[in-house]
């Protein structure tokens, strides 16, 4: 989490401004945040990625705030810095550029900022996983709503019923065929 006490410490102007009285503020618990709400934090995280690459972000940010500096100069400066820092990934360059954008509409949404790529780590115990698969062939993770699951169950039941029906029909056909052939067979006796 954080050195959370630092965020609560009294006597610090910064800390006092960070804490929002939960009784006074609208609780966001359970609600989804938007990137616009935490735009400042997103920008600071993006800046941190540059600071780690020894880029003096404050200087660049300072130039953006100058009135006589064309915003395009700032944008091109950011682009060239990102190319230098993250030359291996054009995707990351675009992402960080959008995070640093002063236009709130350009901000990536929080879903885009969440890591989708996970380094592949093989199963801790492949034998166990394999045996689980054998035991539970129908086990699957589903994010579908329950209604979908009910539909699936009903669909499966329908499938099962139609299978039974076809078995019955096939059985009847065999019986009829046997009946039809019986007299002929009796001729052999």
């Amino acid at each position, binding site marked *: 989490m954080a050195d959370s006490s630092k965020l609560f410490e009294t006597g610090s102007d910064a800390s006092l401004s960070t804490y929002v009285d939960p009784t006074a503020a609208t609780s966001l618990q359970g609600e989804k945040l938007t990137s616009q709400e935490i735009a400042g934090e997103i920008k600071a*995280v993006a800046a941190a990625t540059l600071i780690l690459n020894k880029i003096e972000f404050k200087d660049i940010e300072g130039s953006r705030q100058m009135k006589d500096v064309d915003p395009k100069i700032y944008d091109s400066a950011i682009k060239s810095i990102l190319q230098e820092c993250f030359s291996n990934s054009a995707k990351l360059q675009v992402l960080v550029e959008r995070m640093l954008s002063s236009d709130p509409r350009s901000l990536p949404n929080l879903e885009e*900022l969440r890591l989708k790529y996970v380094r592949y780590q093989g199963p801790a115990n492949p034998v166990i996983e394999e045996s689980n698969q054998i035991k539970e062939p129908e086990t699957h993770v589903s994010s579908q709503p329950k209604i979908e699951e009910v539909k699936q169950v009903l669909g499966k039941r329908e499938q099962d019923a139609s299978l039974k029906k076809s078995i019955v029909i096939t059985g009847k056909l065999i019986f009829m065929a046997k009946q039809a052939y019986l007299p002929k067979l009796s001729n052999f006796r």
Partner: protein
Amino acid sequence: MLYNPDKKVDVDFTFSIPPKLKLAYQAFKLVAETSTYKIFEAEACDSKEKHRIRVLDRSKQFVKKEYDLTATLFVKELLYLQSRYPGSILTNTFEISDDDQQIGCVTLPYLPLSCQLDGSSEVFDPKDPQLIQKLISDALYDIEFLWKNMQIRKIMDVLGPGSLCFMKEKEALFFG
């Protein structure tokens, strides 16, 4: 978080370490400290593995003044870390002793990015796109948690990038 890479010798801060932890570990070195707790590097006597020992620092003014709050936050941080990165906390090592005077726990090794920023050690490769993306994702996850559950704002302003820690074994980044 203040990082002290030069503290290579055992220091006499061990008075704050709970007794069972003191018995199970050796070669304590103070590596970092926050406004409420100290972090030691230590070696497990049996496995010889190096871990971090996180100990609430009763000598800090803020802890003396707001003991309940700081002790609660100390435990909350551990709970959060363990739920976020299972196995990062060695749960069985959590210990309270001496009438709540000593509270401590063992974690897997990690380093704050402040030591990358001051050049004292290379914590991770800042040009690795996967790690940077992980940093963005993990940092914003923590920020979201603090915003929504603890109603805290301007987190990056107060904590700064140096407060982010990297736990290599879990490829995890978190505020610490």
